């Protein structure tokens, strides 16, 4: 009987440490810093097609310190289970001019980004699906700012403008 009591006590202590660790991990990943594996051709040449591992910080967007030119991780407005990595091209109130299909025509459209929204585009305009297709993105869908790449090691470093 005594044996079980000791084993149970130790199991509880270990479970409690693991639980505390997982909670700290969740809070760090959601509110401070997390990593993300991004792939796809829509952000060439900034991000590679085969996949890069980047670090995302979750502080700037809560403080309202994002601006044009920032690389951001956003929840897709077309599928809430997917995240996209794109660049902010215009903030609320800015006028944005864009061409819907740069490979086919030179015609372009202009609009003003409404309050509470941002305009995002992939760096590879020919294959990226972004605000040119789904419209201005509500600011609340922004999850964080991509600020550095950690894999592959040959392109380790911070992202410029």
């Amino acid at each position, binding site marked *: 009987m005594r044996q079980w009591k000791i084993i149970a006590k130790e199991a509880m202590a270990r479970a409690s440490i693991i*639980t*505390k660790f*997982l*909670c*700290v991990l*969740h*809070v760090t990943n*959601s509110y401070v810093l997390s990593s993300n594996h991004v792939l796809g051709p829509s952000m060439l040449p900034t991000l590679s097609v085969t996949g890069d591992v980047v670090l995302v910080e979750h502080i700037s967007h809560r403080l309202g310190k994002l601006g044009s030119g920032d690389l951001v991780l956003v*929840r*897709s*407005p*077309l*599928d*809430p*289970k997917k995240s996209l990595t794109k660049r902010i091209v215009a903030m609320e109130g800015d006028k944005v001019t864009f061409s819907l299909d740069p490979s086919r025509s030179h015609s372009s459209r202009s609009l003003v980004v*409404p*309050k*509470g*929204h941002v305009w995002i585009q992939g760096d590879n305009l020919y294959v990226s699906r972004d605000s040119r297709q789904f419209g201005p993105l*509500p*600011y*609340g*869908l*922004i999850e964080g700012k991509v600020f550095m790449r950690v894999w592959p090691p040959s392109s380790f470093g911070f992202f410029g403008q």
Partner: protein
Amino acid sequence: MGTPSVLWNVAKKCFTVGVITLTVSDLFASIVPVRGASMSPTFNPKTNSLLDSLSDDRVLVEKLCLRNYKFSHGDVIVFSSPNNHKEKHVKRIVGLPGDWVGTIYDVVHVPEGHCWVEGDNSASSLDSRSFGPVPLGLVKGRITHILWPPQRVGSVDRKIPQNRVSSS
């Protein structure tokens, strides 16, 4: 002196409790007050404009629905406003992706990844009729129960408006 180490221990305990509470509130459920009369009579049925914050309804918001984003018609959800990410609204889902929703003037198609929300109190509710379909990524949770005031404690039912929605 014993005081610095006592303070340090108290600080560590507070930090641990804070982190665990934050995680539970993000991933499982939290309790929030509902302000305003846009969901009357489901929440805040007394339309008193001087509603003080102690008499607001307190509800249980579950976050498990955010794993799959699978909602049903009639669910009451909490979401960040598309026009101001700092505000949160409480409304009922009337249309899911792919549905056609009838408003006074025309019939609107709810795009993929979005939902159409309306307040139960149509006369005084700012909802999808003003700001359009809401991306499901802005949803922060689903309200399942009222926890305060004690006389209205109970589960929140799904209410589906008749003859307004055509599902695909």
